[in-house]
Structures are given as C-alpha cells and as structure tokens.
C-alpha cells in the first residue's frame, strides 16, 4: 500500500489553505529501463478533496503531473477543527484516503 499523504490545512483569514503532498511514482509509461524495457504506466488519475461531506475539489490527472504530486488550493465555508479528506485513485485501481483537521 502506498505511503500516507501529507495534508496541511490551515485557516488563512476566513479561508482554508490546503496543501497536499502525495507519495506516488507517477510513471508515465514512456520511460525505459536501462535494459530497454518500458516501465509500465502507473499514475494517479483522479483526486477528490472533500470537507464536511461536500466535494470541494476534484482533479483529473494525466501522467504529466510530477512524481510525488503536490497540490495546493483554497476554499471557504469551513472552520478550525473540521476534517479535510483527500482520496486518490491511480491507474492500477489502488486508492488511498487520508484526513487532516483544519488548524
């Protein structure tokens, strides 16, 4: 199973500043090993961020997102202590969900 995400959600004024760092190889399927065989593609294709049961951000990704993806965004309508939940799914069907409280 993949390593946990690092999620930081902080209040900035009346908005929530979310920063997420995921641990994922993000293989494009184009890269080759030294012996000439292709490294099979393996990347996160969908990311969903929700807070209080509502989806705040949903992202569709291609292989061009960097390895160990970083994502930052802002939203309003939440307060300190609310949980921010992040889920990703990759091209092998693996998923991972992590949560963090807004600080």
């Amino acid at each position: 199973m993949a390593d946990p995400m690092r999620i930081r959600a902080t209040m900035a004024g009346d908005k929530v500043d979310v920063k997420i760092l995921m641990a994922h190889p993000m293989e494009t399927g184009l890269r080759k090993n030294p012996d000439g065989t292709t490294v099979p593609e393996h990347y996160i294709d969908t990311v969903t961020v929700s807070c209080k049961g509502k989806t705040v951000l949903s992202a569709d990704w291609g292989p061009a997102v960097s390895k160990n993806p970083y994502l930052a965004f802002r939203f309003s309508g939440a307060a300190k202590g609310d949980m921010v939940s992040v889920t990703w799914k990759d091209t092998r069907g693996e998923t991972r969900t992590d949560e963090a409280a807004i600080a």
Partner: protein
Amino acid sequence: MKSSRRHFLATVGQWAAALAAVTVLRPIAALAAERNLKAFEAKSLDAVLSAYGGGSAKESADVVLTTPEIAENGAVVPVTVESKLAGTQSISVLIEKNPGVLAARFAFGEGVDAYVATRVKVAETCNLIALVQTADGYFYAQKPVKVTLGGCGG
C-alpha cells in the same frame, strides 16, 4: 481442400470477432473511468477543448499563470494558476509539447477559490497554457518555459 478453406475462413472470422470485441469494449472501459480519456490523449489545445465539448478559447488577462521562466529540471516544474473571472468552474494545465498536452484538470466545488498550485513534468522548452472554464466559455493564458533537462526519460 474445401475443408481447409472453410477452416481458414472460420479462423479469420474468429479473429475479426475478437478484434471487434477489443475495439468496442475499449470506449466502455473509458466510460467506466470518470476521467475524460479523450482529453488526456489530445495533442493540442483545440483537441482538448473539443473533448470537453467547448468551442474555442479566448486569451484573457484575468487568467494568471505563474511558472518559472527557466526550469532547470523539467520533471518538476511548479505551476500556479489563478482565475479572476467570475464563475470559474475548472482550471486545466496544458503543456504544448508533451506527448499528451493536458496535464491536469481541476474542477471546483462551491466556495472554492479559483486558484490551484501543483507541479508538472515538461518534456521540452515550450508554452504552458492555463485553460479556465467559466459559465461564459473558455479562457486561457500562456507562458513559455525554458527547460534545460527534459521531464521524460530521466
């Protein structure tokens, strides 16, 4: 000899059926994934637009795309996109000369700022495009990025 011809035709028929099954099943698999596969396979801005059902995009100064002018490592290029347009629904990041132009698409829920920051791979020196979808259509901003070390092949 007749029977061998029959056998040959039957084999060809089976192969054709198998091939047809593969070609027909593929789009269904694509539908099962929520991601718009056609958009991610697109090779140009216009192709991405048509995959999402948009007409044409207008260049807009209200779309603010922030990237480094020179990216030493194309595998990790920070990108920030902010839209000042009212009613922004989604932001897409496109890289003109990547094997697949569309890198990422972010769709916003209610009460979410039209702002997103991430890191992308850029294969070679080219334009980065931020495409913003609003209720009034599509708008974009573009900026060239110089890459000294490509993001593919490593």
